[in-house]
């Protein structure tokens, strides 16, 4: 099985996902889409973890554990982030990230 799909494929996929996420994070003005971009980044990392684990140290499970932890944390993070976004919406009547720039000098 491992021979059929080379590792590079996984890495290319994850890299594409990663930069898509970065691009979304930097360009999108809507906080929800930015959050989704962050999820993309996290998932690209997860793919890397699992792939490397499978290809480099198949006898170990550390990579899997890490990706599980990342998933759990991402879930928690999403909850918190959405709570924050809701609060921001209540305060600013908008979830446009450009309008939320009170945290400056």
């Amino acid at each position, binding site marked *: 099985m491992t021979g059929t799909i080379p590792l590079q494929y996984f890495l290319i996929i994850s890299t594409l996902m990663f930069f898509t996420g*970065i691009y979304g*994070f*930097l*360009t999108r003005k809507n906080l929800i889409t*930015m959050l989704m971009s962050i999820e993309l980044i996290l998932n690209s990392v997860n793919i890397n973890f699992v792939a490397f684990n499978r290809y480099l140290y198949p006898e170990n499970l550390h990579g899997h554990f890490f990706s599980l932890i990342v998933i759990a944390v991402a879930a928690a993070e999403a909850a918190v982030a959405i709570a924050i976004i809701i609060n921001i919406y209540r305060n600013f009547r908008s979830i446009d*990230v*450009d309008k*939320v*720039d*009170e*945290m*400056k*000098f």
Partner: protein
Amino acid sequence: MIDYTYTLLIPLIPLAVFLFTGLAGSKLKPQVSGLIGTTGLFAVTILSYLTAIRYFWTDHVAGTGYASMKAFEIQWLHLTEKLTINLGILLDPIAVMMLVVVSTVSFMVHIYSLGYMKGEKGFARFYTFLSLFTFSMLGLVLATNIFQMYIFWELVGVSSFLLIGFYYEKPSAVSASKKAFIVTRFADLGFLIGILMLSFMTETFDFRTLVSPTGPAMAQAGGATFLGLSAITWALIFVFMGGAGKSAMFPLHIWLPDAMEGPTPVSALIHAATMVVAGVYLVARLFPVYSLVAPDALHVVAWVGGISSLFAAIIACTQTDIKRVLAYSTMSQIGYMMLALGVSGYGGHDGLGFMAGNFHLFTHAMFKALLFLGAGAIIHAVHSNDMRDMGGLRKYLPITHITFLIACLTIAGIPPLSGFFSKDEILVAAFHHNMPLFIIEFAVAGLTAFYMFRLYYSIFWGKETHYHHTPHEAPATMTIPLLVLAFGSVFSGFLPFHNLVTSDGQPFETHIDYMVAVPSVLIGILGIVVATIMYRKVSGAPLKVSTGFGNFYTWAYHKFYMDEVYLFVTKKILFNLVSRPVAWFDRHIVDGFMNLIARVIERSAYLIKGFQSGRIQQYGYVFVSGTIVLVIIFIYIW
């Protein structure tokens, strides 16, 4: 060794009185404080006389010199391994003599003030301060070492400050007290530097060690020189600077006339009889050192004394405030004493000047206190200090008149009153050792007689002034001290000072030198006669004479503008050119520099704060591009 430990009580009684009346003063009736003070001083006087009698006569083995002895001593502070400050009581001829002077005059002033200060608002405070002064003065007189003297020197300074400023609601009294304190403080700086130098060289403060002819001070003769004078000479000149300040010697005299703002009994006690002669006492204390090691310093003493006495005598002839006339007269007489010490040699008949200086100190204390207390009685009766408001008072104030006349004759040096003897000895000493100074002093003797009788005639004779209230003689509390002091002025000249107080403790023979005595009496009489012609009756003579002197009179009337010079130096130079720029410099340059640093940081923060825009995506761009740049660096360039 005879036990004199009881002399400890002499300074401690006034101290106890001071503490008691000072702390409980507001609870007591004013008169009670006064009585407590006076009773305390009575005890002190008894003890002092007892000590004097024992020291000079009963305990003294005939034919030997008078030794100095320590009645008591404790350690007060260690300074270095060698220098320790002690507090104690030293008895030797001059100390015992001063003890008598201080306690007598102080006791008289205490009694006198019961009448003079009666009904004053600060009656209790006045007695509290008097006790403080008496304590400090006694401590100074009995000091065993130069540092103890300095301690009490400062304390008398502060009591003088408090008493001059007694009427503290009067701005002139406040500024006079400030002036007195600061001028003497400046002189004390010299004293302190002198002590520092002296103690460093000799490794002791103790008077007995210092003045011992085999002591460490004597080994310092010669040595390193600065401007042609040896180190110990400089030290002694600095010490003398302290003495000159306290004793109102030219040019540090400016505080004394202003000090007359204080109540008159205070002027009598502090600014005529006791504190102002502390400078003379200081030089007398260290006399062997001056005389044997640093004759140059002694020359300075002599000339400062001579110039001061002439200077003050000239000014005294022009003043109209009776207390100021007396103040300048005091300065002039102290100049005499300084001069006497300055022209003296050490030991035997050479030490005539030393004996004469102390003798004059003693007699002067009596007659000058008498003059001041008499002036107080006059002011009490007329409510004015100005002699132009007075005249013909002899009818109203008979006792004051007689005693004042006695004092005037005494100071003019008419035999057989005490002033004649002491002044004559001074003139003899000057005659034999320093001719120019003798001529100055001879002239001053005439001037003294003149201005004292000018004062006397202006007050008691002269024009018939009409007073709002008929002046009446002072109460007995005030006239009794006058009589006692008049008695002292008349008879103290017969004390055998040449046996008692001499430079080396050994008695020597003196006799009246007619070569000097006759002319000096004659010039005194001449002064009196001139004053009689000019002032006994109202006449145009004073005006003519004063215009005859022209500008010189104006200068003397304005005290040779010494006050203005001082004001210029302090106000214009020190305040405006030092203090004000310093304050400005501190606020604007030093602090300005600190503020500048803060401002620069603030400005630069302002410049870079734009980075902190608050926009997440901008941060994200920076972060990502930074990461990419780092990655490129690490992978391709490193």
